[in-house]
């Protein structure tokens, strides 16, 4: 350990991960010996082990290219969209104890249960209402009253209702960037996902919109388990209950956020947090 602290962090052999300790909270999912290979053969994630606590916010941090987005996108099998990507190991979802990356599970089912909000707001070229209702539409839900009720609930949940309630028929693309992102959150919320994934949701937003989205994330964890990838350490400190620090495809340290940011047990984490690299 002491040798690793003095070595240059860029050297691949010079760091060793600290195993994640068991946590107190009830588990929603658990990543176990998880590996991921891109279609070109790149081994992007190596032996990841970490718990995801139910109704908590888990943040994934680390420098660019560390694999945090890759890990996040494994939770709802977005990698299946591109040929030849390969998973190995388990991401177990509780309470049913099913393996999210197992080939026997349909990625469509997983995506219906594990929703995702992207880095760049990507509303569909449809009305605000239809954007939020999209998840129900793809489930074949055509009960108008029910859909309206859910759309309103989701928009309220995403703290967007008051701003758009008079223009639900306007195009979703006509909203401002921050509103678009909250629209995408409402879209993800409308179908009651079990886990909500955020992939750097504020990277493309101004500070005021960022604050609104962060408040929203904290508010949402009452109802849904959240995993958030962020490039911004302060954001992780503000919103997350647990934080995982990743580097070059490995999970270096996982712990309660407070602990990570105050007394990290791995010297690599400390170097990153103090801004010596990344």
């Amino acid at each position, binding site marked *: 350990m002491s040798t690793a602290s003095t070595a240059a962090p860029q050297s691949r052999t010079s760091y060793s991960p600290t195993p994640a300790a068991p946590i107190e909270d009830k588990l929603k999912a658990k990543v176990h010996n998880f590996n991921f290979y891109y279609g070109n053969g790149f081994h992007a994630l190596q032996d990841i082990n970490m718990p995801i606590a139910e109704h908590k916010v888990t943040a994934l941090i680390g420098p660019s290219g560390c694999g945090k987005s890759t890990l996040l996108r494994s939770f709802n099998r977005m990698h299946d969209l591109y040929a030849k990507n390969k998973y190995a190991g388990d991401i177990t979802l509780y309470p049913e104890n099913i393996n999210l990356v197992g080939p026997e599970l349909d990625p469509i089912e997983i995506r219906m249960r594990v929703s995702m909000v992207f880095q760049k707001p990507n509303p569909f070229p*449809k009305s605000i209402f239809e954007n939020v209702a999209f998840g129900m539409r793809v489930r074949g839900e055509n009960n108008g009253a029910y859909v309206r009720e859910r759309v309103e609930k989701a928009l309220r949940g995403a703290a967007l209702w008051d701003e758009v309630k008079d223009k639900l028929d306007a195009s979703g693309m006509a909203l401002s960037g921050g509103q678009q992102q909250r629209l995408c959150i409402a879209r993800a919320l409308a179908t009651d996902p079990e886990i909500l994934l955020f992939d750097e949701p504020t990277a493309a937003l101004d500070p005021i919109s960022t604050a609104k989205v962060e408040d929203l994330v904290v508010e949402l964890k009452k109802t849904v388990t959240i995993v958030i990838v962020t490039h911004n350490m302060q954001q992780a400190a503000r919103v997350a209950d647990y934080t995982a620090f990743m580097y070059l495809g490995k999970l270096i340290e996982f712990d309660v956020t407070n602990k990570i940011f105050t007394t990290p047990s791995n010297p690599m984490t400390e170097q990153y947090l103090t801004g010596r690299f990344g």
Partner: protein
Amino acid sequence: MSSTTSGIPTAGDQAPFLDLTASGVPTPTRMKERIIETLLLLAGVSSVIITIGIVVVLLMETIPFFGRHVEEIALPSMHGTAPYTVSAVLKNPGDAVSKKDALLEVTDAAGKMTQVLTHFDGQVRSINVKVGDLIDPSRFTAADEIRELSHAVKRTLAEGAPIPIADVTWRVRLTDFFGDTQWTPAFADKRFGIWALISGTVVTTLVAIFVAVPVGTISAIWLSEYCKSNVREVIKPVLELLSAVPTVVYGYFALLAITPVLQTIGGWVGIDIPGFNMMSAGLVMGVMIIPYVASLSEDAMRSVPMQLREGSYAMGATRVQTATKVILPAAFSGVTAAYILGIARAVGETMIVAIAAGQMPTFTADPTDAGQTLTAFIVGISKGDTPRGSLEYRTIYVCGLVLLMMTLFFNVAGYLIRKRYREAY
């Protein structure tokens, strides 16, 4: 000028138009650059000149078409000399039910009397003929009524050998052109209702679109959303070969392969399909424009950003849901442009319809009928010998102008829509 090409400037050899550069005296390179630029500009502007040329050529013949025509009229010789006097009106169109037929009794200068049945088709709304009216061929001027009358005289009396006795001038009115549904420029009773040809164009185009839009769209979705990129790299060019086949070959295929099949199928369901029909021409034309629709639509679909696709898949949508609920709306303008350009292609297609749809202008909406399109008429007339300046010669330019207007409308619309969507992403 010789110095500019050889690159050696000599005093007094500087053409004044070259002396345009800021520095005043052009260096050899500058002069050369200038000339080259001028030549390139000319080439660039040539397209505009060509367009003007097309419009001018079409108008040069269209304007006289709507102007005065002089026609030799034959009246029967058996009654001696003109003028003929209307000696009795046995049935006056003014108070007859149809208003288009009149039974007259005419007497020639020698006092010989004959009955004449006049028949007025769409050209003349009504006519008043009174006893004592003169029908004087030598004084026939602009009146359509008189022309009709003289035609009628010719038709009903010309049992003997007719002789030309007078020139009749008349003009094609725009109201007839756009108000009539019969197109018979080669007949004695000339009718110029452009709708007969436009209906042929519309019907064949609709049949083609009926094939090309669904097949093209679904193929585009499949190519863009379902198939692997290396498969697409093979299929797309092969599909584009469909539009590389010469249209005359498609015409052959339509007439001698598709029509017999349609006739067999028509026999099963009890529809009598003639050897020339718009259906087979339209179907084959549809196949021909599938690549236009598919290729342009697919381009539009693939230019939809990946984030939108990921957004949809992340909600658990299947590929077909993503394609129809997200990609198609997002690529709407591009796909529409593809349809419109496909329509323009079908409207302007010539050989398939000229070979397979027949040469009978018919105002009909039934695709199992024979019919003639604007393009087929132009080719059909041109295949025979038409003397320059004749009426038939002018009709093809008139049809060309109508055709140009139609395709221009679709092309401009398609261009603008496509340009807009290109800016969107």
